[in-house]
């Protein structure tokens, strides 16, 4: 990591000059951030969870309306949602850095933020390995490396103590606990029928839990799926991303083995949709749902 003292290079709006250093974000951008970061704005629920996990949650001064976890996040000022953040609110909060998860709003953002002397850092973790990397990066820029490493070690320990496991996050196989993969359909929305496709990070989680998404060859991350195809997929297990309008499997699964054998499971939508520390919770729950026999003596 490059450390660059750049006092005098730029003026913060408050008039105080902070020592800066250069870090690299997930898009490969070189970002100048203050060496000491006191005020953080997070523009994604997963990022908020990650910031808390590395022990910098008390420095968050602004989060999105969807940032509901951990509980302390709910008391933090809201700056809109990920897709429609309120720029004025953000600038008024005088953050040292704004953390975003997607590249979609970068261009418009960087300009305004840079004009106000605010750094923009992109952290876009993919799957569990991505979460570990993100926690490491955040620990580094906030100076909480020790806590970040502790969090990573705890999550990794839980990951590696699963009684059933097919691949580790690094893609290595672990034969002693591997079981034949169960064919899973992950239902994101019942009507219209949305599922996970090739580009979803959940494939890695499913594979690690000795499962396999029956739609892992379908393009995009969250495709709208033909019900005809759905009816012919015959999944052994259906996992519902639990939300108000997604409590039951789509009617096209009526004759699937999953429905016939009562193997339909609900997992909190926040837990399986956010690449944050709770992705390990999702992994544990999925492994248990797919292979309950392996968890019996636990």
């Amino acid at each position, binding site marked *: 990591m490059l450390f660059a003292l750049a006092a005098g290079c730029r003026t913060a709006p408050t008039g105080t000059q902070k020592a800066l250093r250069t870090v690299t974000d997930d898009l490969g951008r070189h970002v100048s951030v203050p060496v000491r970061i006191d005020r953080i704005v997070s523009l994604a629920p997963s990022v908020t969870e990650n910031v808390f996990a590395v022990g910098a949650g008390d420095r968050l001064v602004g989060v999105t309306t969807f940032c509901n976890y951990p509980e302390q996040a709910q008391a933090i000022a809201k700056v809109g949602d990920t897709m429609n953040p309120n720029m004025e609110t953000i600038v008024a909060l005088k953050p040292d850095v704004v953390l975003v998860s997607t590249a979609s709003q970068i261009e418009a953002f960087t300009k305004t933020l840079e004009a106000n002397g605010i750094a923009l850092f992109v952290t876009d973790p993919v799957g569990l390995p991505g979460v570990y990397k993100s926690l490491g990066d955040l620990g580094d820029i906030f100076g909480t490396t020790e806590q970040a490493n502790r969090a990573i070690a705890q999550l990794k320990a839980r990951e590696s103590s699963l009684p059933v496991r097919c691949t580790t996050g690094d893609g290595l196989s672990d034969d002693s606990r591997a079981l034949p993969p169960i064919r899973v359909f992950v239902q994101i*929305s019942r009507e219209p029928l949305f599922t996970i496709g090739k580009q979803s990070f959940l494939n890695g989680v499913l594979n690690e839990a000795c499962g396999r998404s029956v739609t892992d060859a379908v393009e995009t991350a969250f495709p709208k799926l033909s019900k005809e195809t759905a009816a012919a997929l015959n999944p052994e297990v259906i996992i519902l991303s639990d*939300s108000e309008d997604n409590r039951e499997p789509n009617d*096209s699964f009526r004759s699937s083995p999953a429905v016939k054998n009562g193997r339909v499971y609900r997992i909190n939508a926040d837990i399986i949709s956010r690449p944050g520390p709770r992705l390990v919770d999702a992994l544990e729950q999925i492994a248990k749902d797919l292979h309950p026999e392996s968890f019996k003596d636990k």
Partner: protein
Amino acid sequence: MRLGLVLLVLLIVVLIIAGMLGAERLPLTGWTEQQRSILLDIRIPRILLGACVGASLAVAGAGLQALLRNPLAEPYLLGVSNGAALGTMVGFVLFQNVEAARPVLAFAGAVAATIVVYRMAKSRAGMSAERLVLSGVIVTTFLSSVIVMLTTLLDAARLRSFTFWLLGDLSQSSSTGIWISGVTVAIVTVVLTSQARSLNLMMIGERDALDFGVEVGRVRLLVFGGASLVVGAAVAASGSVGYVGLIVPHLVRLSIGSDNRLVVPFSAVAGAIFVVLADTIARTAIAPRELPVGAVTALVGAPLFIYLLRRN
């Protein structure tokens, strides 16, 4: 008359072709239990709903164009579709588990939008084509903003299904939706066809029609009411499928002239053909994924309409 027969045969051929195409390839005979279910529970209901929705929007377009003597009168451009869409959304939000609430509120929304547009367009000097289209645009954009506001207020998971539905989506076909839309469009097509002679006279001019003994007020009520009914039922079942009400009656008039006794019923059949074809593309083009049918009708419809405008 011969064209009518051709259209009916064409509709049957299109229905059969649509039945043979889909994300899953099905054999012609000897289906397994699962293949049977795919055909009977998923594919055929969707095709039938597409036919009902297409007929509804086209017949509404044909009726409104004749009544308002304006080739641009169309449920979508006049705000009728958006009125129905807003009504359906209110139904979704307030009466989530009552499916029948949606078409009723959609109808109410369509009627309200129609009344507002009509009142705005009408002045003491009569109703000019420009004024009507302008009123339609104002109401349409206003209702769009309300819809966007509502989707922003609803939470993220439901937002996705609404944005898809707003573009027109036939994947959520239910037997209730098919029955409501089918019966409505059958009755309204018959009623509007029965008024076609009066509409023909009114196209010359309302005063002339009055001289011929046409009850102008009653005809107006029947056409506005009928159009709102079919659009309400169609939108409640499939969202806002655009351009059908504009293009189909135009194509029909181009081929048989502007006698409404033929234009109205032929538009219904041609509309069914158009939407079933468009939905076949939506179902198969990127299978196993799907496109919203409204995107396909707009993609085909807009260039076709520009071509028609330039040719005339």
